[in-house]
């Protein structure tokens, strides 16, 4: 240990705090100037923590399920009635869907339609809410050689969740569509108008830049657009809902209780590829096709 005189040691002790605060400012600047460094550091921390979180993921999921079950028991009768009504409704829709599917198949056969290539996907467990007060992202635990790269698209069973922003060897981070920095090109289903879906840090992202003559309608379906080549067209995003005069989108995905997400590789080049020097994992084998 370094031997210092008492005044020197006192002076050093007094200097520590200002020096550390200057260090914090330096970190803020560094994080702004070299985003890749912060990203690497986050990815390596994610890699360390993901296996740990994966270990406790099962008990946590079970505890959550038990709590939910207890809640269900209370509202059993009412829920049953609602489900029966919904079932009835869905049965009608099923008939419609089957008829449309058959019609679609004949039309495609007549038109010599070239189907889109099936996208490969991997399913991963959400192990941590890696966001904060001003960031919305989740951490995925993935095995080694997962083949997930930056820019790939994450969906849950209902709709678009977000995009991969960081990958490590055992973990990946998904920026949710509600994040402040998220911008997604979308199409409004009725008018086919294009718009941008911007995260607001709240639960509802907001629509921006729609054409002036076609304002979004309340309850209109919003899907991704293939513009900018960052997403495939037609992935369900949510429904338009006006809050005051602002058109917001109620996400179709259950962003507050994500359990599993599927990460799709659509081989799109709209998002810049990972920087040179970043390790690229081999492409996974093609998987079953996915119809949104």
């Amino acid at each position, binding site marked *: 240990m370094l031997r210092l005189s008492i005044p020197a040691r006192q002076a050093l002790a007094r200097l520590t705090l200002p020096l550390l605060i200057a260090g914090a400012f*330096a970190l803020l600047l560094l994080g702004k100037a070299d985003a890749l460094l912060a990203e690497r550091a986050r990815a390596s921390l994610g890699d360390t923590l993901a296996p740990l979180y994966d270990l406790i993921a099962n008990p946590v999921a079970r505890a959550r399920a038990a709590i939910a079950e207890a809640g269900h028991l209370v509202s059993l009768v009412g829920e049953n009635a609602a489900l029966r009504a919904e079932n009835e409704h869905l049965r009608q829709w099923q008939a419609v869907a089957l008829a449309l599917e058959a019609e679609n198949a004949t039309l495609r056969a007549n038109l010599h339609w070239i189907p889109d290539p099936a996208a490969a996907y991997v399913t991963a467990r959400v192990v941590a*809410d890696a*966001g904060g*007060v001003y*960031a919305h992202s989740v951490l995925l635990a993935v095995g080694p050689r997962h083949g997930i790269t930056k820019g790939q698209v994450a969906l849950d069973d209902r709709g678009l969740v977000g995009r991969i922003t960081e990958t490590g060897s055992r973990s990946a981070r998904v920026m949710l569509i509600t994040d402040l920095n998220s911008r997604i090109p979308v199409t409004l289903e009725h008018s086919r108008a294009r718009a941008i879906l911007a995260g607001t840090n709240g639960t509802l992202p907001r629509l921006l830049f729609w054409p002036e003559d076609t304002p979004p309608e309340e309850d209109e379906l919003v899907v991704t657009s293939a513009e900018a080549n960052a997403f495939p067209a037609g992935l369900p995003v949510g429904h338009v809902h006006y809050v005051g005069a602002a058109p917001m989108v109620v996400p179709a995905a259950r962003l507050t*209780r994500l359990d599993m997400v599927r990460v799709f590789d659509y081989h799109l080049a709209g998002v810049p590829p990972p920087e040179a020097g970043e390790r690229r994992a081999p492409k996974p084998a093609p998987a079953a096709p996915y119809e949104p």
Partner: protein
Amino acid sequence: MAINFPPPRRDPRSDPWHQLDAMARAAFPVAATVLGLLALAVPLGLPEQAALAPAFLFASVYFWSLFRPAAMTPALVFALGLFADLLGGGPLGLDVLLLLLLCALTRRWRRKLARWSFLLVWLVFSGFAAAGAALSFALTALFSLTLLPPAPALVEAGLAIGFYPLLAVLFTRAHRSLAADAEI
């Protein structure tokens, strides 16, 4: 006649077990904070869970800087902030800056604060928490160059202030047991 002298008593400070024990005691505040942060990142589905972690972090750094500053040195606060920044998705260095400012102010007013009643200590913490939430709100807005809705900052400050008494009770127990056993 043989006289049995008792073996000479060893200096307890040189005992490896004792040293290990002392180290564990010194590491407790930071270790508990790290574990708490890790636990709060698990998707438990709690309402406003995103704001709980910074609230816990703030309360923890304040309490230990006030009552056990040797175990919550500025360097450790820096490390804690960096860990929280890397764990979360915010701008790198923001938590480091906020926690260091909190630590600096708490250390400066420590001698007065430690003698005050719990209510006053809580009141001072409320001021710090509100100022911290406001600063973090302002800096995040500045960095992203957008005007943010103020609700998350209010929730963060409210949770920090509201949960402080509960955390203080838990921390005080830990603090007392750490101090009591340290004399042996």
